[in-house]
C-alpha cells in the first residue's frame, strides 16, 4: 500500500519521532510505514488519517486493482 505519510508529515514540519508520539507508536513503526515496509492496521490507518484531517484514501492508496471487482459473482 502506497502512502503520502512522508509528504503530510513534511507539510507539518514534524519529525518521525514527533509523529510517532502523536500516534502513540514507535518511531520505527512510522519509518516502516513511510518506506512501505509495513502496512498499518485499520485502527492505526484511521488514526493517521484523523491526525492529518484527511480521508483514509487520501493517505493510503492500494497499488493493486480493486480485489472485489475480480471476485466471481
Amino acid at each position, binding site marked *: 500500500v502506497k502512502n503520502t505519510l512522508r509528504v503530510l508529515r513534511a507539510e507539518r514540519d514534524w519529525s518521525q519521532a514527533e509523529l510517532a*508520539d502523536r500516534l502513540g507508536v*514507535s518511531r*520505527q513503526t512510522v519509518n*516502516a510505514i513511510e518506506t512501505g515496509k509495513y502496512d498499518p492496521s485499520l485502527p492505526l490507518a*484511521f488514526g493517521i488519517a484523523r491526525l492529518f484531517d*484527511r*480521508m483514509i484514501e487520501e493517505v493510503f492508496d492500494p497499488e493493486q486493482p480493486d480485489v472485489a471487482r475480480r471476485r466471481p459473482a
Partner: protein
Amino acid sequence: MTQTEITPRATAPAPPIRPGRIEFTACGPTAKLSQQAVLDVTLLYAGAVAIPLLVKLWTRAKTQPGLEPWTGSLLLTGAFVAAGLVAFLFRRLARRGDYWAMFLGGGVAFFALFRFDKGPLAAGTVLEKPLVLLPLIPAALTIWAFLKMVRNTDELQRRILYQALSVGFVVTFAATLAYSVLEDLGLPHVSAVWWWATLVLSWVVGLAISSRRYR
C-alpha cells in the same frame, strides 16, 4: 450515498502525546541502551555477584577459628548492602519504565545468583535455607519486565517480537533435539538452564533479524 458520506473525515483534535514507547530496535545491531541503563545493569550485576560471594565468605567465617568476631557481621552486612543496592536498582529501572534494561538486569542477576554454591546454605540453619531460593526473585522480575515490555509494544513491534520468538523457539527446539542425540554419542550432560540461555540468545538474534527487515 456518495463516497464522501461513507468515508469518515475526522475533525477531532490530534490525540495526546503518549511517551514511553519502547524501541525494540534497541535489541538489534543499532543497540542504543541509555548510558544510565548500562550503568544500572552493570551495577546490578556487580551487586548480584557480591551477594553470594559475601554470603559464602560469611558461612566460611562462622566455622573458621581465630577470626575476629566482627568479621562475620561485616560480611553479612555487606551482603545486605549488596541486596539493598540490587533492590534499589530494580526499583529505579521500574520507575523509569526502562523494562528492556530491567529484563537484561533480571537475567544477569538470575545467572549471578544461580551459579553460586548453594550447598552450605541448603545445609544451614532455618534462616539460611531460604537464601537458596534467592535467584527466584530476579527470575520473577525478569518475567514481569518482559510482560510489561510486551504490553507496551505497538503493532509493528509486536509483529517483530512474535517473529523473533518464533526464531527462538525453533532454534532452541532444534538445538535441544540435536544435543540429545549428541549426548547419546558421548558428549557431556548439560544443565537445563543452558537451554533457557539458548532461547534468550536466539530470541535476541531473531529480534536483530526481524528489526532489520522493517528498517
